[in-house]
């Protein structure tokens, strides 16, 4: 990793057995959850947008390992993994994807709009989450609570103007914000070389120190995140982290993902650079766990995900009474016009 400042994250890291098992479990759960979503989508039980994260697991797992629970995270639409790492169960995530009342957003949000304490989605408009993240960081600074915000975006969003407005204000005001570019080499179908005059995304923050990190290695991600978080927490202002990663699926479920890249490329990453395999090999070769143990964990995860899918396919859809609920918060009920003048619906607010 390369830096603008004098120090950098440590070159070595310590991985305990417990940590290793925890990261393994986390990444494997994400992997299986995303593949289950793929399956449900192909069965037309999930509809609309579905942007899958398989291949990028080390990013979400590593970031969560490098921050505190009380820190804040906001990301774009490839958000299922972060929803999980921030504490939402697989079953609530899958049930949201299938649009059921047991979904984390009660079926109102879908794939791109899932929320949890200190997790602000899930955002559908490319780049919009970055200023939002800086705003969350401003709130941390204002409240003096020592917390930071991790604001993620992709290589595609890296060219959005609002990011540069945000970098300017974050640096000016020394906001405790870690900007993270998950560079998976393609913005939808456009490779980084075709989209950016400079593909050194870690440098695009200009006056904001940046580091480039191997996003397939959960330990690299963790250490870089810790370093970045410390930087922010010590009042030095924002920092930018580029995670070099890869997605196995296409941009979304409607994209086979092979018109703009070769199958060989995908296969190459899968066989040589898979984040879960990397961790597994590391643990096995250091005698931190046995193959049987990991297989047992796999089995538990498979069951967890299958149960979650079962719930997600059997839970009822939200009642029609929910249609106009929670437009506002802490507000007297308002009448909502339905599809025709005689359809006078009532909106109850959340509280």
């Amino acid at each position, binding site marked *: 990793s390369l830096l603008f400042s004098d120090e950098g994250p440590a070159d070595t890291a310590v991985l305990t057995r417990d940590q290793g098992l925890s990261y393994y479990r986390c990444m494997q759960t994400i992997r299986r959850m995303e593949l289950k979503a793929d399956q449900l989508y192909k069965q037309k039980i999930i509809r609309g947008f579905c942007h899958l994260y398989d291949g990028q697991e080390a990013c979400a797992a590593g970031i969560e390992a490098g921050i505190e629970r009380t820190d804040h995270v906001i990301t774009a639409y490839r958000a299922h993994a972060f929803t999980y790492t921030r504490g939402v169960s697989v079953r609530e995530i899958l049930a949201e994807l299938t649009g059921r009342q047991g979904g984390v957003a009660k079926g109102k949000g879908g794939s791109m709009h899932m929320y949890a304490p200190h997790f602000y989605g899930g955002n559908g408009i490319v780049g*919009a989450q*970055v*200023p939002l993240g800086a705003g*969350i960081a401003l709130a941390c600074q204002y409240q003096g609570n020592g917390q930071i915000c991790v604001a993620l975006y992709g290589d595609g969003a890296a060219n959005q103007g609002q990011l540069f407005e945000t970098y300017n*204000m974050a640096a000016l005001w020394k906001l405790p914000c870690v900007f993270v570019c998950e560079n998976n080499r393609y913005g939808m179908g456009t490779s980084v070389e075709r989209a950016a005059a400079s593909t050194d995304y870690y440098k695009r923050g200009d006056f904001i120190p940046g580091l480039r990190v191997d996003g397939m290695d959960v330990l690299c991600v963790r250490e870089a995140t810790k370093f970045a978080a410390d930087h922010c927490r010590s009042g030095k202002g924002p920092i930018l982290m580029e995670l070099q990663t890869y997605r196995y699926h296409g941009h979304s479920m409607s994209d086979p993902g092979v018109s703009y890249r070769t199958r060989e490329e995908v296969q190459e990453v899968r066989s040589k650079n898979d984040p879960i395999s990397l961790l597994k090999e590391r643990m096995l070769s250091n005698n931190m766990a046995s193959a049987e143990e990991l297989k047992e964990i796999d089995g538990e995860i498979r069951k967890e995900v299958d149960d979650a899918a079962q719930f997600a396919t059997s839970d009822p859809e939200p009642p029609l009474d929910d249609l106009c609920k*929670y437009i*506002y918060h802490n507000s007297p009920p308002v009448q909502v016009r339905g599809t025709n003048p005689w359809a006078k619906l009532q909106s109850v607010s959340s509280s």
Partner: protein
Amino acid sequence: MASLRCFLRSGKNAMAALQRSGFHSSAPAAVQMMVRDALNQAMDEELERDERVFLLGEEVAQYDGAYKVSRGLWKKYGDQRIIDTPISEMGFTGIAVGAAFAGLRPICEFMTFNFSMQAIDQVINSAAKTCYMSAGFQAVPIVFRGPNGSSAGVAAQHSQCFAAWYAHCPGLKVVSPWNSEDAKGLLKAAIRDDNPVVFMENELMYGVPFEMSEEALSKDFVLPIGKAKIERPGNHVTLVSHSRCVGHCLDAAAVLAKEGIECEVINLRSIRPMDTDAIEASVMKTNHLVTVEGGWPQFGVGAEICAKIMEGPAFNYLDAPVTRVTGVDIPMPYAKILEDNSVPQIKDIIFSIKKTLNV
């Protein structure tokens, strides 16, 4: 089936009687206060009351506000709570919304609402829709405020009215005060509201003084969002307006009163939610409705009122179709004579009322 009365332009009601609506005596005039000072007082009181409230925008701090609405606040509250931003609407609006997500109560100022177009995605997609998308999990207690609509000689890019644009969107509350009491009471309400509120001021009103009652001067004076006010009762025709045009309606009403035509002037105060009940009750009394706004006619506030009246009980009480008085459907020109004729003048309102009443 539509009542036949709707098609008869009898005009009888207008010439009915020499009824003069009595002016109810007001409380002894407390203080004269300009709209900008009322807004200032509102923000000052709310900043003092709740430390989560803060103001950000261009020139709000050291410049005392582009229109001096935030005068003195930076000196009193300091850098953390009154924040000068770079010229980065999309960026700072997103930052403001994010701060609202994470527990603060920002007031995000647009130097004029014309510049809010740069940031409109953050207002609509990040602020307005979030409570609903999150099934009530994530509230967004934010106020977006600034001058809206036409000013004087600032030409096309600086004169647009955004009432219809913002009021179109569920998840927002949209407020448009007229006088100083409105300004103070509604801004305090907006700041205390846990939802995104678009608060549209008017530059030409900033320097206009109004009487402020004792009650209005108190620190807890809050007006309800969603309730209109009848500024002037009358029996012959209902005038519905918002912002600066309310004053024009009252002026027109004063002229017409001399001819025996008594106008009921309703100050909407809120565009969303709109006090449809108040409009309907009035129309059911007067049988005639004229809407007056500064914005463009197509898809505007008046258009919405027409649709609402058509769909409700008041339709059968209309003796004439609803008339809309609006800005001219053109980008705002610069030359004074052209600009003056691009917005509703008192004579346009009077003319429209008489046409509606068929007198």
